[in-house]
C-alpha cells in the first residue's frame, strides 16, 4: 500500500498491522525516517514537504513494482508525510515482508534510496537561522547508484 498523507502517522501501529497481515512471510524489515532536531549548530524547528499529487504516488507505485520484480517479496507498505512537520516526527515509513530476510532488507534499502533521490517530494527545513530547501546528499546519490549496477547485470 502507498499512502501520501498530511496527518501524522504512528509507526508502531502501522508495523503492528503490517506484520500481523504478513502471516507466511518470515521476515519483516521496516525503515522510519524522522525530522532531525538540528542541522549543524542550528536547531531545526520544522519541515515543510510538498509533492506532485497523483504523479508522485504513481511514480512510487512504479518503483514498488520494480522492487517486486527484483526481490521475492510478499508485501510492501510506503507512507510519506507532506505538509508541515515538527522535529522528531516520522516523515517516511517503508515496510517489506518476505520469506527471507535478505530480500526484505535489500528491497527496503532500495525503496528508501529511491524515495530519497527520485520520488517527487521537496523538503524545506525551517531552522532557527533560516529556511533552506534540501537536496539529496552525495551519499544519497551514491547509495541510489548501487542499484543501477544491478540493472546492467
Amino acid at each position, binding site marked *: 500500500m502507498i499512502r501520501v498523507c498530511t496527518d501524522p502517522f504512528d509507526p508502531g501501529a502501522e508495523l503492528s498491522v503490517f506484520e500481523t497481515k504478513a502471516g507466511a512471510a518470515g521476515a519483516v524489515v521496516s525503515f522510519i525516517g524522522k525530522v532531525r532536531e538540528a542541522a549543524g549548530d542550528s536547531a531545526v524547528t520544522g519541515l515543510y514537504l510538498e509533492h506532485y499529487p497523483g504523479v508522485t504516488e504513481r511514480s512510487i507505485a512504479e518503483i514498488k513494482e520494480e522492487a517486486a520484480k527484483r526481490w521475492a517479496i510478499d508485501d510492501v507498505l510506503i507512507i510519506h508525510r507532506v505538509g508541515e512537520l515538527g522535529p522528531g516526527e516520522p516523515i517516511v515509513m517503508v515496510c517489506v515482508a518476505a520469506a527471507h530476510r535478505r530480500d526484505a532488507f535489500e528491497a527496503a534499502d532500495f525503496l528508501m534510496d529511491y*524515495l530519497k533521490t527520485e520520488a517527487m517530494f521537496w*523538503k524545506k527545513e525551517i531552522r532557527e537561522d533560516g529556511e533552506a530547501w534540501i537536496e*539529496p546528499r552525495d551519499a544519497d546519490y551514491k547509495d541510489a547508484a548501487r542499484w543501477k549496477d544491478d540493472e546492467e547485470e
Partner: protein
Amino acid sequence: MARLLFFGKLADAAGARARQVKLEPETRTIDDLVAVLGDEDAALGASLNEKSVRFIVNETLASRDAAIGDKDEIAFLPPVSGG
C-alpha cells in the same frame, strides 16, 4: 491556457506554485517557454535553466525539447528531497 506548476525552490523563484498562461503559437517547446519566462524575469529564467531541473508535461517526464501546447500542464521540478 496552459497551466504551469512550480515545485520547491522553483515556486519561491516564480513567486507562485501555479500560473495560468496563454502560450503564443511560437512557444513550441519547453525551451521556448523557459525563454519566455526568462524574458519576463531573468532570475526565474536562470533558475529554470539549471541543469538539475526536470520537466513534466501532462504528468509525464519530458525533455527540454518536448513539444507543448496551450492546453498542457507543464511542471518544473528542482532536485527532489523525500524521505
